[in-house]
């Protein structure tokens, strides 16, 4: 990489305290319960690219989204924004405006009592990018046009728009601070398929035109296939496989990645009969010992039950799996 990574996570872990209330614990003498939402996660995002994190519920991708944008401080490890610690970067308005976020729920991400123009203008006013009302107005107009809406839409309230249009407003708001880096937390998961296509196309266009860098969070592998340059597959807080998207999709190495790819109903394979891998998603509060995936893994052996696998390279891809390391995954 010639230019510094936009975002770098180094051995990041994050714990949530999910203990019972203090008074209750006093009487029952229960210990504190900690939920390890993110466990020793490391990745780098090169400028102008899209790095996707993929996984199911409880895998920690949403927590990473919030860590990446500085809403939480990691319990352990470091997050660097252009080689500076994220927390100090965020303390400077000049750097803080270079990152922003797009959310999943088009209905909860816009304040129902604010007009659209005020919603989009908030970052402009917060960072004093423009101060005179007509300047602000002009910028809002440009932003709305950029996402396929009109300045007249600015006069309306969010409830007058459909889900897809609200996501566009969300994107316009995120772009208002003129960021370089956008964290996209499941931006199309709540949208219909045809609307999703519009939004994904819009996001790719904007990335090309404005040189944006995306951290793209999703549970939908097909969407990730379309958007990502590099991706990380997460399971119960760890990244189990990480590397160039093409490589991972073509030859998935980790058994969980294979399970995920196999589980997705495929349009091209009409009427396919298959035997999906059984087992449930374990609870992040009490993860299985050793490799968290071992109860569901067809390749699990004794070592997997006691020892957490380290990240090893397998070609261009980084995998955390004993079977891959030992060459058992054939």
């Amino acid at each position: 990489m010639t230019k510094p990574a936009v975002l770098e996570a180094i051995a990041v872990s994050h714990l949530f305290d999910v203990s019972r209330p203090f008074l209750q614990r006093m009487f029952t003498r229960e210990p504190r319960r900690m939920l390890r939402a993110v466990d020793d996660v490391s990745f780098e995002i090169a400028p102008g690219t899209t790095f996707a994190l993929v996984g199911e519920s409880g895998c920690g991708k949403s927590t990473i989204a919030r860590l990446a944008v500085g809403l939480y401080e990691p319990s352990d490890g470091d997050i660097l924004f252009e080689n500076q610690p994220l927390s100090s970067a965020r303390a400077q308005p000049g750097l803080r405006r270079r990152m922003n976020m797009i959310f999943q729920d088009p209905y909860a991400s816009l304040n129902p009592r604010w007009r659209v123009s005020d919603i989009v203008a908030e970052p402009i006013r917060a960072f004093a990018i423009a101060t005179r009302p007509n300047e602000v107005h002009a910028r809002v107009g440009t932003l709305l046009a950029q996402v396929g809406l009109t300045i007249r839409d600015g006069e309306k309230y969010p409830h007058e728009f459909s889900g897809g249009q609200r996501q566009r407003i969300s994107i316009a708001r995120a772009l208002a601070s003129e960021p370089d880096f956008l964290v996209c937390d499941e931006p199309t998961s709540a949208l219909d398929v045809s609307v999703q296509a519009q939004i994904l196309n819009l996001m790719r266009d904007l990335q090309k035109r404005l040189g944006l860098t995306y951290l793209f969070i999703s549970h939908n592998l097909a969407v990730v296939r379309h958007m990502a340059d590099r991706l990380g597959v997460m399971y119960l807080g760890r990244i189990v496989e990480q590397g160039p998207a093409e490589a991972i999709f073509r030859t998935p190495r980790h058994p969980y990645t294979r399970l995920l790819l196999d589980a997705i109903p495929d349009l091209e394979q009409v009427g396919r009969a298959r035997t999906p891998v059984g087992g449930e998603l374990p609870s992040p509060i009490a993860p299985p010992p050793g490799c968290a995936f071992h109860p569901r893994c067809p390749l699990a052996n004794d070592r997997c039950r006691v020892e957490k696998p380290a990240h090893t390279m397998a070609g261009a891809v980084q995998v955390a799996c004993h079977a891959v390391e030992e060459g058992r995954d054939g």
Partner: protein
Amino acid sequence: MALLDVVDLTVEFPTRRGVLRALDRVSFSIDAGEILGVVGESGAGKSLTGAAIVGLLERPGRIAGGQILFEGKRIDTLSAEPLRRIRGRRIGMIFQDPLTTLNPLYTIGRQLTETMQTHMRLSDSEARAKAIGWLDRVGIPAAAHRIDAYPHEFSGGQRQRVVIALALCADPVLVIADEPTTALDVSIQAQIITLLKDLTRDHGTAVMLITHDMGVIAETADRVAVMYAGRIAEIGPVAAVIRHPAHPYSDGLMASIPSLEHRVDRLRQIDGAMPRLDAIPNGCRFNPRCPRVFDRCTTEQPELLDAGATRAACWLHAHD
């Protein structure tokens, strides 16, 4: 004779701004043992269709026209009590959210036995034995022990399995499943779909599978009906609709789904959005967004026309 025959079903919602027509002359049929997928985006009316068939339309919605024939007899004109009997015994229902389907205050064993005993003559011990059998068949481990557990003691996927057992335990001939896997994680979805497919094939139960997920339909259904703004846009065998869609909407829909196999530069998108119920365009409902629109589309609404392997409500296939 088809198991379920829906003819020109029309559902309306009177509001103070006028009457909104949510379903407009929807017609389709389901044969015994077949799986019909009903797919569409939000607001297309697919859930309403399922609800209307079993008489669970929420007020002030009402059936304003058409007929629903089940096993040859009309059920849309039945009163509440006879309809309720059919609903449990002959038609099973699976809804999206297992948390609200299952009563949190009763054990799942009680809910299963209660359902069975309401519709079949069984002693308590017979019902309990059958219930354990069902839990086993839907893949709940240690069924004999878990039968006395409460819904909150199960995971989301397991709860949906219980819901499937509940729907099938009275041995219905038709199951209406409304988004049965949408609330579940991807890896669990796969298990539930396979389970549903296997069980219904084993018992010869017909399924009306309502979902927005085209992939689920591709894997599970025999035929599929694509709905748009309260009407059926296209209906036919699954492979035909997916690989050679005859309606521009189905075509656009299939093309906008990103593929796992390869990455394209731009997904094909359908501009605009589905019309709201109070702003339905004249002629074909899809005409403002259709890339192949011509004059007739803006004035006359097409019925389902023969389009080779499928039937599509599109003037492109008019043979006159």
